[in-house]
């Protein structure tokens, strides 16, 4: 575990990141990332699933992450047009020191998504997230976000919002 100050900074980052994703504030959410980025949602709950040999729902580097955001900003990403209404709760937060002075934050989440693009359907997304957080001037930025859904290997509805 890390000191209180680092722990508090990490928790505040997670809350802010969650709120920007929930509110579809795409540009502000993208600004939370470092230049190097790995945004990863495995299609498996196997903790050892290697993204180079196993398929993922999302395995974005920085370039693909920017494409993902640009799609949402065109106004023609019909699977998120209009954007789903979302709120997520974050809990069970554990922060430890990682490599290169980064903080590694683990957290559980429950995300309620009201998908309103065809008919109003409530979808529940539950899992554990891992954030790699780098200290930069003025605060923290994330270099990795990995989201392991408890139903990662089951049939999923559209996941084109920011999870």
């Amino acid at each position, binding site marked *: 575990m890390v000191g209180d100050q680092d722990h508090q900074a990490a928790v505040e980052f997670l809350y802010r990141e969650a709120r920007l994703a929930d509110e579809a504030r795409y540009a502000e959410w993208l600004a939370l990332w470092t230049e190097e980025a790995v945004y990863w949602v495995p299609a498996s709950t196997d903790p050892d699933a290697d993204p180079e040999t196993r398929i993922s729902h999302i395995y974005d580097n920085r370039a693909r992450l920017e494409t993902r955001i640009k799609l*949402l900003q065109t106004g023609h990403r*019909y699977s998120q047009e209009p954007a789903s209404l979302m709120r997520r709760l974050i809990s069970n937060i554990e922060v430890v020191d990682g490599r290169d002075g980064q903080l590694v934050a683990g957290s559980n989440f429950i995300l309620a998504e009201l998908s309103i693009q065809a008919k109003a359907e409530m979808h529940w997304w539950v899992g554990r997230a891992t954030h790699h957080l780098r200290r930069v001037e003025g605060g923290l930025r994330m270099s990795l976000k990995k989201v392991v859904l408890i139903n990662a290997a089951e049939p999923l509805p559209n996941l084109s919002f920011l999870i």
Partner: protein
Amino acid sequence: MKHRCAANWKTLPENDSDGYHLGFVHLALFKTVRMQYQRVVGDEKAIKAVVRDWGHGHIEIDWSPGYQGPFEWFGGAAGPVVADFVAALERRDGPELARQRILQGPAHALIFPNLFLGETNIAIVEPVDVEECVHWHTPMFWKGVPEFNGRLLRMAEAGMGPASFLMPEDLIIATRNQQGLRARTPEWLLLSRGLDREYLDDQGRAVSHVTDETTNRALWRHYRAVMTEA
């Protein structure tokens, strides 16, 4: 990977082999990145890709008439690994067939009723309920070239699946169409696009411009035939 859709299963095989929807449904992607499908949103007369009716409900989009160089279907892959692969193909198949393979790429076709050959992916559609189905898919890995696996995975993730850049749009539009079907009137849908210009090739297959509904007609005609013995 499995992608859930709140629409009747038949909408997805039709969608998988339809060239008309691309320019509208996938506009977000075409506005954002260059890719091979982009050629369907330009001047209609400049589009060379075709659709083809193989009979018995088997239908195809053939992009290859529009390809200008090798591996356009593979993100323009190049470099030493690709060169080794081409050399091995030439040794196995001879230069002519190897050239054809790397130019045309794998099929974009529906094997009736629910097996979709999605170029470098394979998919099936599983009916679950009247208004629910699951689109299953997997990337193909090619024997002898594990170096391509990473690229094939990234292409599959870009194109297919709930978080990809293509399929979420297809499935949400399918769901909206399903809602539309509840209207009940009118009792018909018009699928006449291209009737005036489709033609039979030398093997008796109907062929037409990629945005024509030749494939849609072929699918539904065969479905009606097998379901009614008509």
